[in-house]
């Protein structure tokens, strides 16, 4: 038992060592940590209120007090940027969590029990993967009504096939291995086999998919909010701040208003993608760094 434990820890320390060598991924991990700390702690520490408006100062340019200027209603852009970042991360993480909760069990069932489970679940995955999710999300949102929670739930539901497919693949690759067959032979329950022998094999691909999926969920939320079908004002989101900049005057004359949220969105998504890339290389036992 002890030797198994040791092997585990050496695998993960190996992963950690490999990840640390991936310089861009490490750099992006630093950026993400900084962004997360900034959006979580700066507003409460400084007592910032995203809906506090300075009257009569619509679209005031950046100055010493308001470093990113004021928006149409005289609200501080910097504060709204921080709250927008919060919204993006929240929607991205919660919706990915929903996708995992739906997708992982379905993928396990399809790969482990095979038969009708496999046919039905994997056909559903095919159908979902083939169809443009943006269109379906728009249809659902138009019916339920746009809000931060409806968007999170719908994006979460639409993301399940990614997890089901990746889990299905990794389950198939181990079910015929001797150690699983011997577990069957000694009479281990399905639950125990899945928990002890099948699921640990699927953890790495699930982790990698989680990062990529979080990044695309954040992009999807931002696009929806930009179209006015996502997070609704007064709640700030990086997408709906840019929705406010659709008028020609704002777009052409006030770049200081809409460039920061766009850049922050890009940095967040890019950093998560790079972290995912580093994680994928580090978790791959075949990769020698």
């Amino acid at each position, binding site marked *: 038992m002890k030797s198994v434990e040791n092997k585990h820890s050496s695998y993960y320390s190996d992963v950690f060592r490999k990840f640390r060598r991936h310089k861009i991924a490490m750099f992006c991990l630093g950026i993400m940590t900084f962004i997360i700390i900034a959006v979580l702690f700066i507003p409460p520490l400084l007592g910032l209120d995203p809906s506090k408006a300075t009257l009569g100062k619509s679209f005031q340019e950046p100055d010493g007090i308001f470093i990113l200027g004021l928006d149409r209603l005289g609200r501080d852009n910097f504060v709204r940027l921080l709250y927008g970042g919060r919204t993006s991360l929240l929607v991205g993480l919660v919706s990915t969590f929903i996708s995992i909760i739906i997708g992982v069990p379905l993928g396990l069932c399809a790969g482990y029990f095979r038969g009708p489970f496999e046919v039905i679940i994997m056909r559903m995955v095919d159908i979902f993967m083939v169809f443009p999710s943006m269109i379906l999300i*728009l249809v659902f949102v138009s019916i339920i009504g746009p809000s931060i929670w409806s968007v999170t739930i719908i994006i979460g539901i639409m993301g399940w096939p990614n997890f089901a497919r990746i889990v299905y693949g990794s389950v198939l690759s181990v079910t015929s291995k001797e150690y699983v067959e011997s577990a069957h032979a000694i009479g281990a329950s399905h639950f125990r086999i899945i928990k002890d022998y099948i699921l640990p094999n699927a953890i790495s691909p699930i982790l990698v998919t989680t990062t990529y999926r979080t990044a695309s969920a954040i992009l999807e939320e931002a696009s929806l909010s930009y179209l006015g079908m996502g997070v609704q004002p007064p709640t700030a989101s990086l997408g709906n701040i840019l929705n406010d900049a659709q008028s020609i005057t704002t777009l052409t004359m006030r770049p200081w208003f809409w460039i920061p949220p766009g850049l922050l969105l890009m940095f967040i998504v890019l950093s998560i993608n790079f972290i995912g890339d580093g994680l994928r290389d580090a978790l791959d036992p075949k990769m020698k760094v």
Partner: protein
Amino acid sequence: MAKYIVRRIVLSILTFFCITIIVFFISYLAPGSSLDYILANSNMSPEEIELRASQLGLNQPVYKQYLTWLKEFFKGNLGISLREYRSVTEMIGERFGNTLLLTFSSLLIAYFIAIPIGIHSSRKPYSIGDFFSATAALVSMALPGFFIGMFMIWIFSAKLGWLPMGGMYSSSAEHSIIDLLKHMAMPVTCLALQQLGNVMRQMRSSMLEVLSEDYVRTARATGLSEIKTVYIHALRNAMGTIVTLFGTSLPFLVGGAVVTEQVFSWPGIGSLMVTSITTRDYPVIIGITVVVATTVLLGNLLVDITYGILDPKVKYD
């Protein structure tokens, strides 16, 4: 082979029915349905409302309404828009070509740039060049389409004044090719930039796989030049990827087109979808969804069949 094609066709038809049923029933359950809309916008007596509802078939059970809708769909009739009182088929027909023009031009450009880069980085994996293209691919996949679009408008229209801000033609009277190309430049670039990463990555990984095959080693061993080995022997076997890429890009392209058309006020079905959703014009929403579904399914069917022909290793079971 015939069996494989038949299976694919049956699967596509099944998918088609699933999507139409889901979309139809969801919009049936929606608040602010067609009948509510008519009621709110008229001062008809209860008898007149009854008559109007039965004319539109709105007092029938859902499944009957669905069957009627399906029958009409196969006749090419998608119903009447609640907002414009026009045939939905006509409205989509006017704009569908514009969306195809936008998406296919951007896909072509993305292919022309990304495929050679993908092949090049597969030849020297983990080299500096490969590192740069992998980084570029990740950047491309992280681009928010609407932000890039706004940025381009700001630079190329507002600052430099080179390109028009949006639309398809400068005036409705005169339709010249040059004018069209000027209007296409930014939206097509915006959409193509977001495609590059995906195409580059997939091309690289499939070429890597092919280059490690025995016949490539044999080709090299016979003294064939590296160029010939890669571009004639290996590339031919990686062609299947380019075909499947087309299938996997379709859903992303459609999603990207909705946002891009909105940014550049391009008169396609994406921007029509957005306006229809804000006005709750359900016949148009259902119409667009079904037309998009049909196009994507047909595209994928075509991909599967072509792939089957190109790659003799595909198992037809």
